[in-house]
């Protein structure tokens, strides 16, 4: 296919995504694509530190929860718009990332990973513990008072869809820019060999921390949108290790350290979850989860570099190469 053809096809696809909520009236389909967007966003955020920087974090649900809880609690208790509360949540998540990152980045490999799991669990327990403030295990339901942009409350799914799409596009553009910017190259250098990077003058702790903080802010923003889309949050739902793993799985399945990997991964993982649940969910044995797990294993075993590697040899697609291939450590 020539360039014009590709652009035409791509424009068509872009129009399909934009017009999707107009064409379908079924909230579930909109909700599903919305979840793809949210997971793709979180995957892109996670990829900054987990993929480009190769620091496997399994504690990202903490930032998701901080975003979600900040916006929801500020609205429910103090009637502050989630547009403001969301920013507060992102700032708090950045703060948490600094607090977690400073000591944890002294650790490497599996030790760093374990430390993030521990930090995530501590956060979940804190959300459970301060029940006077967070509602504890009871969670916080959002009462619905009719459509209002200031409270991010809509009876239709479409506004959430466009907000999630907007967030995804913004994060995508940011990550794409970072990939090429200095920080992207520093991160790639750290991924390839942290000691070598340090010996060349890269302040690895600082670079990792910046990536981690940005990654936290992106995850928190997704958390805010999730909370208002679903209308109920509790520590087991938004601060669980499960969610942290899901975020990482999205990227690992799609292609770690690539720009399109998280988007592809989110599409596959979310749709796979929904399809297996839809067709096998009424069987009583949890067959849907078994099949879901098996498919993920197949993907990871057959394509360790992620599904995005399927497109590697397609000359026409110009899909991204591994960042590592264009590292110039100077």
């Amino acid at each position: 296919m020539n360039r014009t053809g590709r652009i035409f096809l791509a424009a068509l696809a872009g129009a399909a995504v934009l017009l999707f909520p107009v064409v379908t009236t079924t909230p579930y389909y909109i909700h599903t694509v919305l979840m793809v967007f949210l997971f793709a966003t979180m995957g892109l955020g996670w990829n900054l530190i987990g993929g480009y920087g190769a620091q496997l974090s399994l504690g990202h649900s903490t930032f998701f929860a901080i975003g979600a809880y900040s916006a929801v609690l500020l609205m429910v208790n103090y009637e502050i718009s989630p547009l403001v509360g969301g920013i507060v949540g992102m700032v708090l998540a950045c703060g948490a990332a600094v607090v977690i990152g400073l000591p944890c980045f002294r650790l490497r490999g599996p030790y760093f990973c374990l430390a993030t799991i521990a930090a995530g669990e501590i956060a979940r327990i804190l959300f459970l513990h301060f029940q006077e403030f967070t509602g504890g295990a009871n969670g916080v339901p959002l009462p619905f008072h009719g459509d209002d942009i200031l409270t991010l409350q809509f009876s239709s799914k479409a506004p959430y869809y466009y907000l999630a799409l907007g967030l995804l596009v913004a994060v995508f553009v940011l990550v794409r820019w970072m990939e090429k910017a200095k920080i992207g190259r520093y991160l790639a250098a750290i991924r390839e060999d942290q000691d070598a990077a340090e010996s060349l003058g890269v302040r690895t702790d600082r670079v990792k921390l910046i990536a981690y903080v940005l990654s936290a802010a992106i995850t928190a923003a997704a958390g805010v949108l999730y909370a208002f889309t679903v209308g109920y949050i509790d520590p087991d739902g938004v601060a669980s290790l499960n969610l942290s793993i899901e975020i990482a799985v999205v990227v690992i399945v799609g292609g770690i350290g690539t720009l399109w990997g998280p988007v592809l991964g989110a599409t596959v993982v979310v749709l796979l979850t929904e399809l297996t649940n839809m067709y096998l969910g009424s069987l009583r044995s949890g067959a849907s989860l078994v099949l879901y797990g098996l498919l993920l294993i197949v993907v990871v075993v057959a394509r360790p570099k992620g599904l995005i590697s399927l497109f590697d040899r397609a000359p026409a697609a110009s899909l991204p190469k591994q960042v590592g291939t264009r590292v110039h450590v100077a």
Partner: protein
Amino acid sequence: MKLGSWLTSTAVVSAALGLAIAISQGAEKEVQIAFLNPLSGNNVDAGQQDLNAATLAIEDINKAGGIKALGGAVIKLVIVDTTSDPKNAASTAERVFSTQKVAGAVGTGISGLTLPILPVAEKSRIPIITNSVNDQITSLKYKYTFQVTPKGSQFGSTQVQFLKALNETYGLGIKDVAVVYENSGYGVSTASSIKEIAASAGLNLVLFEAYPHGFTDASSLVTKIKASGAKALFPVAYTTDAKLIINTMKQMDVSPVIIGGGAGFLWPVFAKEMGPAVNGFVSVASWNWDSKSISSVPELASITTRYEEKFGTFMTEHAGPTYVAVRMLAEAMEIAKSADPVKVREALSTFDNDKIGGFMQPGRVKIDGTGWNGAVHPVMIQWQDDKPRTVFPAMDAVRTFKR
């Protein structure tokens, strides 16, 4: 190029989506009811009991001629696995409510899964009857939410009243009590209610301690119970945790009077795991199969008998209210003479019934202004002859408490 590749991938997304959309929606002549419960994950036990009950209720309704006001339409259950993850619960609810034509829904029996489903039901205008006990459920002012079971906050007062009755009858003189509870929606609401009421009942709360669901070592918890000197213990737990706590107490020779907080102390698996030692345990229950209002009415008692024949265990605390919930939806359709969810909701909002409603203690379902069955109260059971038997309050009791 980059824009091109972005849009190309979007095409992939859209194609995958198209696949998801290709769902066949058969034209049903029957009326559908959505059944939302966890059929996988941690909470599968509860979900399975709910499913058994819902299946039996549907069979009973259809055998008796379906919905008569709708020309004998048969009811079909749309079974949906919410999984045990709140995030999935919301999206499965979204799916069933927007892709299936249902007159109403039942579920779930787990508060943490029910709460994310309620806003979806409200926005989709589908009435949902839940058998979760969390107090927040009917405080949200949702119009499409109905709660058939007692609230968690009632559990505590029933347990405390029972202890008072024990003190009076047997002169036990128990004043110091301890509460240990699972850190979940169900655990917190049940435990807090005990805390609130203990002082006014003249009890001294010497320990109030949470533990994480599925913990593997109860020794530090039991050490705290021992150190507190409590003479009575209120554990709020699911089966595995309940068994762990009790066994650890035995090993460490700690033996206060145990008054269980429902769930784990009531399920068939508890009897299976404890063996003959199960007899004598007491617990609060949101529902019990042999309460007076059920066992004194042959028609209602036969439901529990048939459940036992069909599924091999007594009808459980989760199963009973789910059975009622399905029958309530059918009854509401009779009243509304319609399967339109909005009309079914209207019929449910003033629902007052002592026939099938007799299946809930104390013999009636009466929905109040908040959507809650305000008539209901919990009961106390004691395991006797390997089954939980109702022993308190007197109006529901069929057996006497054995020391």
